[in-house]
Structures are given as C-alpha cells and as structure tokens.
C-alpha cells in the first residue's frame, strides 16, 4: 500500500474507532451524569426551602422558577436570579419562598465579589435576616434589612434580588393585585413613558381627554420588524377600545406587548398603581421646615418637621382633633422616638393610642415627602463643606454661614478643564453670593462644571455645618462607630478649643490593619484639628468607623 495512503487510513481508522467508543460511553453515562447533576441541584435547592422535589413550571416565567414539593404537595418556590454586585460577573442567588411568597432561605449560588469584602454576602447569619420577609415588606437596605458595611454594593445587590424574587413569586401567585389606574382622575394632557422590550426601550405617548384614554402612540422602539408589528398595531388600539392598560398580550410578540403596557404604566405612574412608596432617606433631605398632615383617630393631624444637617431635629404638632389625654402622651412618645432613632420605618407605637401614633408618623412622612424651598438664610452658622460631580470628577466647595448670610464660597478642588471651569466658577460664585440663592443661571459653555458646583453646595447644605472644634467645651467625650468587623469606641479629649488626645478604647478589627488606620487618622486629626482627613488606604473600614466615632463624640459634646 502507498505509504501516505496508509498513514491517512490508519489514523482515520483509529479516530473512527475512538469516536465510536466515546459515543458508546457517553450514551451509557449521560443519563447517570444528568441524574447526578439534578440531584446536586435539588440538594442546593433544599438549602433554601425544605422540600424533596423541584418541578419546572409549565408556563414560561420571567425568572428561573422551580415549584418545591414535599410528599407531593406544593410547599413553595425556588427562584434563581442574578444580581449586579461589585464584580461584573454578577451574583447568582437562590431564594426559597413559601406559598405566601415569604422568604424561607437565601443561598448565594456563585459570585465573584472581592474576597474578604464582598464575599461576606455568603455569611449565613446575614442571609438569615431575609427569613419571613414577604410582599408587604419593603426589603430595602436601612429599613427592614441591613446592608453590610464595607460591602454595600454586593449586599445591596443581594437585597434587591431577594426583593425581586418576592415580588415575582407574589405576582406569580396572584398575591399582588395590579391596581388599575382610575382614568377619571387623570388631568387632560399627553404623558410619556418607557418600557423595556426585546430590542431596547419602547417609548409611548399617552393622551387623555375628559378622563378618557384617547390615544396611545408608540414614539420609538427597536423591536424586530415583522415580529413585533402585530403588538405595536393591536395593543394601543385595545387600550383605547377597552379603556384599560392591562390588555391581553399579542401571542408571538409577548415581550413587545408587555413593553408597551409597561411604558404606558410608566407614563401614568404618578397617578397610582406604582406600588408602595419609597422609604424616605432622611440624610438627603434639604434643611428647612416641612409641613404635612395625615388622618389620626378622628381627623387630620398636622405637623411641622424641622430638618437640619440631614437629621430631623424638631417635630411640632400644629393641630389635631384626637382626645388630648390619650393623644398627647402618644405624640410626645412618637416625637422623642423619631428624633432619637432618625428612623421612620421601624417605629413602635404608643400602646393604647395606636391611631394617634400612626397618624403622627404618617403626617411626618407626608410632610417630608412634600417639597421644601431651600432657604439659605435659615441655615445655622458654621463652615460647610460638600462634594458634587463636575465634568471630570469631584468638585469640592466650602462656604461659611454668618447670621443667615452665605459668605466666602470657594472651590477647594475640582478636576474639570481649567479654562472652562474657572470661567464658570468666576461667574457663578459672585452670582450665588449676590443672590443668596442657588437659582442662578448656569455659565453657558460650562454647564457640567456649573452643575458640579451647585451640587457640591447642595451637598454641603444637606450635610450641615462641619464641626467647629473651637466651639467644643473642654472635656473627655466618648463616641462609637462601626468598624470593619464591629463596634469601635473612642475617647476624645478637647482642651482649649483643640483636640489634644484621641484614644481608641475598643475595636474588633484585625490589629495590624486597624493600628495603621488608628495611627494615621489620629495623627492627621491632631495635626489639622479637622475631621476632614483622608482615610488610610488598606484600612478603609477601620478608618471610616474611627472617623464616625470621633464625630459622634464631638457631636455629643456640642449637644
């Protein structure tokens, strides 16, 4: 035989026989491997809900869903979804829920978060805080669940995923009712909204006249031509004809149909049906006096709430109609509690006067949801420092308030192109000082730099005046903060208007890193007599906790 032909034939034969053998082995082992994989997956599912069988639902669902059964009876559901944490890879999360859509267990299936920081999301103690949360709970960090300090991005992603899982199963079980929007209350006009479709955002314009939906126009979309056409054609017509938003989707173009429905809902979201209101972030409120009312036991309770430096400092009941002997102790109790905890979500009611208590709480919430006009002249005296985002990075400003007058406004630091930014600052700073208001025209040609400056001033106002050590009476003050791994306690000695000593009494952090932070921060503060010092890199968690503790100590001195 020709030698090169022999080469080809022999190698070919060997490959052929190998392929046959492999096919055979694969045929034999594939079902066993599949079964094992299923068993392992079920074992993982069992971590989040006590069940022995996990069945795929018949219909298509938004997220990966398995129906958990025990002894043949449905006991709950397992949802698998991905949260976007710090790493771009995403966090793969399993959430087990019972038939009431209450969380039974949360398990981090896989993640690529930073070891030592983000990977603390796998801590079972932290994950156990979700147990029992249901569709009526906000499941938001800082309200009913806690993020992990130092791993905010990772833990917030998990919290968001759990919330989505609860809402999803709640919707799947029909526990969350879609409230149809009352068209009669919608003023005449055209409203715009967007929804996410197959190819991107779908934008709609919705027109109302005399309390009736008269027109739905799809302004722009990026859906597949041909496939999505029936939905684009039929859904707006159906909405107008049936005078409702939740119309039947067009089969074959479900995603586009749902996108149009979502876009219309988005356009009308201010008229209700948008779900529970967002919790109030007290820290981001403008300083000033807010007024609001809510129903108490009999009639409206009206309150005036004073916010300063991102804190509720005063609550006054302006009027109420409840029985004074019951209501007044309740009001006093609630007001003390709110000012003490600065928390509007986890609040205890005064026993025996629940309605008055709840009415007061709702009045405070309503007040804080109202808009307040920034009144610069009402700001307390002191030095203010704040940060805003300019064109290329952070813009830092400082100014002083002296007897209600804003003075000495200056840019401490910015990263914008000097020739534009300096022009913007040169125009804006005198304008703001002159007008004593932030409602000034932005410098044309440098809108981003201008906006950065205004944002920085706003941030400074929200934060309140920075601590002026020279105003602190002599003494030793103690304060606590949250370090990387736990509470941290300091004692700050002030003498002759100066910080003379800082002693860390107790902390839980790793000694070798913590001492870096403690030495660095202590020295920097003693040198500069200011809390506006840089954190020590490599020991950020401890640094932040330490600064928090020192600030708390000095604040306790002033109050």
């Amino acid at each position, binding site marked *: 035989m020709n*030698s090169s032909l022999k080469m080809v034939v022999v*190698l070919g034969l060997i490959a052929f026989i190998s392929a046959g053998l492999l096919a055979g082995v694969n045929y034999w082992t594939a079902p066993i*491997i599949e079964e094992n994989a299923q068993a392992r997956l079920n074992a993982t599912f069992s971590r989040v809900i006590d069940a022995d069988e996990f069945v795929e639902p018949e219909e298509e669902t938004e997220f990966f869903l398995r129906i958990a059964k025990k002894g043949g009876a449905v006991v709950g559901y397992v949802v698998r979804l991905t949260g976007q944490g710090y790493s771009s890879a995403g966090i793969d999360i399993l959430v087990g829920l019972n038939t009431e859509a209450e969380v039974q267990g949360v398990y981090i299936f896989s993640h690529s978060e930073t070891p030592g920081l983000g990977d603390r999301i796998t801590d079972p103690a932290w994950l156990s805080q979700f147990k029992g949360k249901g569709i009526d709970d906000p499941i938001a960090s800082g309200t009913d669940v806690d993020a992990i300090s130092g791993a905010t991005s990772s833990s917030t992603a998990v919290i968001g995923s759990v919330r989505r899982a609860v809402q999803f199963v709640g919707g799947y079980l029909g526990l969350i009712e879609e409230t149809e929007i009352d068209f009669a209350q919608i003023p005449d006009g055209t409203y715009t909204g967007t929804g996410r479709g197959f190819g991107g955002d779908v934008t709609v314009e919705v027109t109302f006249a005399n309390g009736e939906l008269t027109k739905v126009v799809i302004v722009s979309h990026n859906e597949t031509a041909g496939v999505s056409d029936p939905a684009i054609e039929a859904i707006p017509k159906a909405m107008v004809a049936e005078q409702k938003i939740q119309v039947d989707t067009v089969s074959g173009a479900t995603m586009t149909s749902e996108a149009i429905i979502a876009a219309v809902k988005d356009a009308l979201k201010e008229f209700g049906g948008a779900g529970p209101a967002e919790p109030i972030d007290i820290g981001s409120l403008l300083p000033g006096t807010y007024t609001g009312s809510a129903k108490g036991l009999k009639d409206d309770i009206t309150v005036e709430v004073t916010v300063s430096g991102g804190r509720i400092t005063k609550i006054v009941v302006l009027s109420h109609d409840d029985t004074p002997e019951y209501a007044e102790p309740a009001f006093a109790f609630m007001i003390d509690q709110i000012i003490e905890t600065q928390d509007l979500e986890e609040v205890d009611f005064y026993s025996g006067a629940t309605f008055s208590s709840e009415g007061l709480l709702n009045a405070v919430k309503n007040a804080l949801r109202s808009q307040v006009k920034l009144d610069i002249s009402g700001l307390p005296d002191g030095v203010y420092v704040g940060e805003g985002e300019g064109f290329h990075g952070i813009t830092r400003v400082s100014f002083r308030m002296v007897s209600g007058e804003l003075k000495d406004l200056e840019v401490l630091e910015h990263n914008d192109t000097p020739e534009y930014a300096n022009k913007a600052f040169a125009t804006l700073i005198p304008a703001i000082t002159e007008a004593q208001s932030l409602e000034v025209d932005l410098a044309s040609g440098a809108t981003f730099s201008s906006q950065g400056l205004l944002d920085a001033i706003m941030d400074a106002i929200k934060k309140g005046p920075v601590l002026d050590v020279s105003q602190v009476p002599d003494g030793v003050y103690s304060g606590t903060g949250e370090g990387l791994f736990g509470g941290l306690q300091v004692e700050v000695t002030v003498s002759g208007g100066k910080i003379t000593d800082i002693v860390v009494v107790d902390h839980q952090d790793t000694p070798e890193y913590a001492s870096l932070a403690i030495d660095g921060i202590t020295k920097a503060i003693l040198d500069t007599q200011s809390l506006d010092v840089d954190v020590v890199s490599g020991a950020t968690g401890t640094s932040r906790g330490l600064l928090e503790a020192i600030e708390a100590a000095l604040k306790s001195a002033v109050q």
Partner: protein
Amino acid sequence: MSILQELKRGIFAENPTFRLMLGMCPTLAVTTLAVNGVGMGLATTAVLLGSNLVVSALKNVIPNQVRIPSFIVIIATFVTVVSLLLEAFAYSLYEALGIFLPLIVVNCIILGRAEAYASKHSLGKSALDALGIGLGFTLSLTVLGAIREFLGAGTVFGLQVLSESADMATIFSLPPGAFITLGLMMALINGLTARRGKRSVARRNPAVAKREG
C-alpha cells in the same frame, strides 16, 4: 525480567515523579489531600494501561510518521472515557481533580511510555510497564498528598490525626507547599539512593529522562 521486577522498576528505579521527573504539573496541583493523590494516580494508571495496551497492539500497524497523532488520539480517548466514568460514578473525585483530569492527555508520562516502551515491546510487557509506572506515580502522589494533608490540615485520608484546634501550616495545602514537599522528598530519595550506591544514573532510560513535561 520477572513480573515482580518489572513492577518494582516503575515504583523505584523509574519512579515517574521522583526519578524521571515527569508529570510534574498534576503532581504539584492535586496533591493537597492524600485521597486526591490516589484518585489522580489511579486515573492516570487506567489511562496508561489502556493506551499502552492499544499502542503495543497496534505498534506494527501504525506508520512511523503518524505515530504521535495516533498515540494522542488513543490517549485522549481513554482520558475522555475515564473522565466520563468518574463524572458518572465518582463525582466528588471528578470535582477534586478538576481541570487536571482532562489534562492527563498531555501528561508526558503517558505519551512517554507509549513512545519509549509500548511501541517497542510486547502486549504483556507493556501492560506490566503501565501498571508499574502507574503504581509508582500513584504511590508518589499519595505520599506527597498524605504529607501535605498532614502538615497543612492535620488529617491523613480525611482522618483527624492531630487535634482539630492544632495550628497547622496551611502553606502546605497551598501551591508553595507542593514545591517545598516535592523538593524535600526528592532530596531525601536522592540522598538515600546515593548512600546505597546501588542504582546508578546510567540505568535510567535516557530517552525518557529527557522528555520533560
């Protein structure tokens, strides 16, 4: 050479790990636990036995020019078979061996034995060679794994030897520990061999010794 001698040759004189210095990559990577060493060694032995037998049987059929691709196809087939069997019947071992299981394909011990031995010897001798070398490899990996497991975790074959609270040298469970242990073992064996002065370097198969993986 008797059967016993043939087997002993692979374990001592031509021990792939300590004498031939072949297959260092899986040796260093999987020997964190004794049981992983046994698993990797046996998986390699199975592949080695299969490939040696087939190569020896086909030694007169395979043309010289395509012998390397042929050997590789044969080895790859056996590796895939072993890998599928492990995945189906010994999943925890399959997971522990990880990427090093498919990488048995490029383990130079196997191609080395096919090229240097099986393609020149009879079926029976090739099988004995595969078993001897395979056992030598398994034994070396097991010893390395046991030492590293003991020093790094205080256990041997998963059994608690030292008290659980003992402060162990975790470095031995980590990659640097593999190099340290292997280096010390090799020094010990070379030292013992030199003292006994029985086995000379010349007895090593030079063709194989040069094929470093």
